[in-house]
């Protein structure tokens, strides 16, 4: 009897999923979710190892501020404005890392909080919609925007993802060199400034993309968690990269499906799954311990 009941529930669940997948917006959400998870985790390993984890956080707030400005100025396509602003900030932030006047982490904190405050202020002053706090909340936590993607946005997202993945594969060895030992790379004639710039630009692009999925407050989680989980278990750069991509995509798929079934917010569900994956990785890392 028990068994039959759970079988029935399982079938119902699958029926429900199939029902939802008839809607294009659900399919779009899944496609975009997987692509963003893939891109963000690729770069996550480098950012975490270069001690740039917070750049993602700072840039996402910049993207939020830019979005507020864009909506005040009534741009038809937000991307055109948000993307360049975020890229410029990414470049500036990575520059300050080498400058000693304002330390890197302080600069990130400054720009991040500043953009958040200005963004909220602008949205408040020039509120266009009737439900201001709802708008702000969905921008910060990405509660529904992933389910309102248009076909154009999905195409744009796919194209950008393909470019990001291609750049990562082409420059994989260079990114490794710059991450492991920038001084050595520069001393032996590599153009490290160029590769740092490249990393900054790609990070900005990924963050703007990911804003749709998890909202600007939770983006760092997508970047950091898979990389940290993978680093607990694997011990070469290549295997860590692969593992973090697999883990990130898996968590995104599970998170999106769960949020559809349970009606929870997409972004925070994915991050919750990421946290669970991190804990499991920690345990696995502990058990596997001394092994090389």
């Amino acid at each position, binding site marked *: 009897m028990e068994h039959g009941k759970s079988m029935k529930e399982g079938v119902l669940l699958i029926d429900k999923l199939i029902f939802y997948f008839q809607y294009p917006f659900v399919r779009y959400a899944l496609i975009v979710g997987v692509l963003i998870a893939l891109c963000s985790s690729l770069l996550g390993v480098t950012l975490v*190892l*270069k*001690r740039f984890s917070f750049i993602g956080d700072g840039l996402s707030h910049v993207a939020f501020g830019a979005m507020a400005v864009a909506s005040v100025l009534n741009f038809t396509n937000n991307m055109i404005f948000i993307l360049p602003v975020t890229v410029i900030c990414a470049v500036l932030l990575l520059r300050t890392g080498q400058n000693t006047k304002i330390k890197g982490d302080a600069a990130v904190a400054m720009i991040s909080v500043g953009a958040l405050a200005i963004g909220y202020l602008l949205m408040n002053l020039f509120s266009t919609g009737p439900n201001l706090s709802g708008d702000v909340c969905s921008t910060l936590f990405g509660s529904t925007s992933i389910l309102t993607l248009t076909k154009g946005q999905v195409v744009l997202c796919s194209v950008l993802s393909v470019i990001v993945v291609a750049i990562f*594969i*082409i*420059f*994989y*060895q*260079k990114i*490794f*060199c710059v*991450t*492991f*030992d920038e*001084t*050595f*790379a*520069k*001393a*032996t*004639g*590599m153009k490290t400034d160029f590769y740092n710039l490249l990393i900054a630009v790609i990070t900005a692009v990924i963050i703007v993309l990911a804003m749709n999925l998890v909202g600007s407050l939770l983006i760092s989680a997508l970047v950091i968690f898979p990389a940290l989980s993978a*680093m607990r278990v*694997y*011990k*070469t*750069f*290549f295997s*860590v990269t692969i593992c973090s991509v697999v883990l990130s995509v898996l968590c995104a798929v599970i998170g999106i499906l769960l949020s559809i079934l349970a009606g929870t917010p997409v972004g925070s569900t994915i991050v919750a799954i990421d946290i669970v994956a991190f804990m499991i990785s920690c345990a696995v890392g502990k058990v596997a311990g001394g092994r*090389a």
Partner: protein
Amino acid sequence: MEQITCKNLAIGYDGKVLLKDINFSVKSGDYLCIIGENGSGKSTLMKTLLNLQQPISGKILYGAGVKSDEIGYLPQQTVIQKDFPASVREIVLSGCQNRVGMRPFYNRSEKKCASEMMEKLQITNLENRCYRELSGGQQQRVLLARALCATKKILLLDEPVSGLDPKVTEEMYRLIEKINCEDRITIIMISHDIKAATNYASHILHIGEEIFYGTRQEYERRCTID
């Protein structure tokens, strides 16, 4: 054959002069030790030689076909490397990067070069081990192998034995001597260990209040007069 010549070189940070009137030249096959107090500008000098920062005035001339992508460098370890997930092979291979150009992957001759260097430094058995789990001496060997992948001519070392115990220190010095003698690779090494410097180096550059440059014998003679 002069490989590096410094003429009236002045070095420092942000326009502030740390050291001036540095004159010396390094010939092919030399073993130059740069010694001096902490904060005397040894590392700054090396960074300037490596083109990581600009000299304030004066000139560095690279002769005998030494280009910046033909210099090997063993830097001091950074905090980032302490918990870096990378295998020994990945790190040694990355030394070949300066010959790769825009090609995304390493070719067979570069992989062979990495294997040979690991063989030479007796770390082939560690090939697939994780860098962060190695001992200090083993890590230095890995970084040395990487530096050797990057050069056939000249090797710059920044305090290669700092933090190593006496036995491993001795091994490291012998290894560097062997590279200098057998492979005819020019060595420029920063050290604050004057005894080791006078044991192994052919030339000494002492920086500080006054700058001395000469052969080891000249340096020892000067020290006994003092």
